């Protein structure tokens, strides 16, 4: 079994799930007041960004240069 393909596949599929969940949570919390909810919104946005980055790494678009294999 080629573990690299398995790892990349799980990363790609998982990142889509994370992105969708983060965006839905962000949408649900969008109008919620309070300092902590504003911080949650920033963090959920960055989590969605992490999902995009991990997806691009999973499908081998990112991570082909510099210090990465």
């Amino acid at each position, binding site marked *: 079994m080629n*573990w*690299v393909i398995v*790892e*990349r596949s*799980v*990363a790609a599929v*998982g*990142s889509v*799930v*994370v992105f969708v*969940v*983060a965006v839905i*949570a962000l949408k*649900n919390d969008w109008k919620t007041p309070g*300092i*902590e909810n504003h*911080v*949650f919104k920033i*963090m*959920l946005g*960055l*989590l969605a*960004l*992490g*999902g995009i*980055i*991990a997806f691009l*790494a*999973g499908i081998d678009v*990112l*991570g082909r*240069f*510099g*210090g*990465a*294999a």
Partner: protein
Amino acid sequence: MAVTTVPHAGVHDDGPDQLYVETRELRLQGFLLFLVSDVVLFSSFIFAYLYLRNTGNVWPPPGINRLDVAFAAFNSMVLFGSGCTMHYALENWKHNNFVKYAWCMIATIVLGAMFLGGQGYEYTTLYFRDHVSWGGSGIFGASFFTLTGMHGFHVAVGVVYLTVLLLQSLAGTYTKDKFFGLTAGTLYWHFVDVIWVVLFSIFYLI
């Protein structure tokens, strides 16, 4: 001269609930300041790494293999997934779904432990197969192990913290209206997620 009395647990007329309401904002601001101080800590190490990296002509330095992006992406998904389960743990608590809350918390703790296991596997591989170490691989080894190790320490603390929160909630410490500990735990866990987004990008992708 007006005299201001400070409410004290046990002697305040309205009991601890009133005290909780009065101090919640202060505790939240204190916790956010703690997170900001952690951001400053990580930022200083990250900028030091980026500065040192830009001073070298070749990166990674000669003799050091490139990092395993596929495994790091997989491990990142484990941590990002735990961020989602943690967020829904808090949402379920707010909506009185205790069973779903407990399962989401357990999933978060398990995923956090899995991430640490993955990091341990990566360290072992780097050390024994690629001979990369903290003190013996120059700037690269020192930066990589310091930053990812510091983050791993935060994740380990978070796993213990969330376990304590779960046990406290099972013991009835928190109610539908009093759950600042759970809010702080969620903020902390999102913080370690966001830090990993940055570390994953700078060490593995650029």
